[in-house]
């Protein structure tokens, strides 16, 4: 009997040190996006936004900003998301940040101005101030669009 037990223990020892004991499926990997650049994260955010997944989009924009806080496109896109989420103050902050990084960045100028016009109470003077501060820096096409917003803001004064 003792021999059998000793042999069984030997088998257990052999098994525990064999490849069989360590052959098991790999543990689930934690999803990560570490391999991507800030711009790629921002682009992922746009894809999620297009697909209607706002939460995932926001996460991607935040990740883009964490990787490169000077990514003005990501800040602007984050601002857009915050407008959609009903957080105009946060959105304005994001747009201002984008404009501090890239003065005259058209989408940020436009959307910041529009938040002043469309969020109650409307603040047309602030919209005009924003547009005038950046109008000389934008390209001709953007200038046309901004002038439309400017004229609307003046009409609301």
């Amino acid at each position, binding site marked *: 009997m003792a021999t059998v037990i000793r*042999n069984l223990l030997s088998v257990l020892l052999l098994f525990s040190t064999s*490849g069989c004991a360590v052959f098991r499926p790999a543990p689930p990997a934690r*999803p990560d996006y570490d391999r991507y650049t800030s711009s790629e994260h921002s682009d992922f955010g*746009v*894809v999620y936004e297009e697909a209607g997944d706002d939460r995932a989009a926001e996460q991607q924009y935040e990740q883009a900003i964490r990787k490169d806080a000077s990514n003005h496109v990501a800040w602007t896109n984050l601002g857009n998301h915050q407008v959609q989420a009903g957080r105009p103050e946060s959105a304005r902050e994001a747009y201002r940040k984008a404009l501090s990084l890239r003065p005259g960045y058209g989408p940020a100028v436009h959307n910041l101005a529009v938040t002043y016009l469309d969020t109650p109470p409307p603040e047309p003077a602030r919209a005009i101030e924003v547009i005038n501060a950046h109008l000389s820096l934008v390209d001709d096409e953007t200038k046309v669009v901004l002038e439309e917003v400017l004229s609307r803001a003046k009409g609301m004064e």
Partner: protein
Amino acid sequence: MLLHPLRRIGGIICLAALPLVLAATTAGGHYVRSQLSAHASLPEARDALVREVARQKLVALGFEEDEAMPIIDAALASGLAEALVGVFRKAQSGEAGESRLADEGLQQAMTVFALELNRSTYRNSEMDSETIWAYPFDQTTYAFSSKVVGFNIPGILLWLAPVVIVVAVAAASGGSAGSLVAVGAAVGLIMILFVDPSILFGSRE
């Protein structure tokens, strides 16, 4: 008779209100949509995201990085990106305001991914067919199960045969119970050390 002038007044009011309604509905600036970086177009960014989501899923299921990528490449080359994105969108429309892409939607997407992969023309293609069919997906349950998808009975029998034969011979020659166990374990150990244990699992079609 009394209704007639009232109707006329109502009609005039409605017509007068129409410009106001139009003005109200068209008022308000449209926001400029979120912009892509200068490095990628939307389809490119979408493909990259689909690729990343698929990679994460496959790695989480136990695939090595270098195993996962050829599968994804083959899937994308066969146009599955569109199917995946379609499923992403469908998953989104389920519950308003709640993101499901990260979990349930992703599961659905990957289910479609698996099924489509199995149905894809790569079954008969020389390129990548080995890679793909080395890792069959569980179509019965409509889910990715894991890299190990079951047991390979012939492989198990092949693996056990030497152990059984040696133990049987030892028993026939009158060995004690202890010696039978020891001999069986020794042969088993040799099998573990020198035979690829993957023959015990899955199947390569």
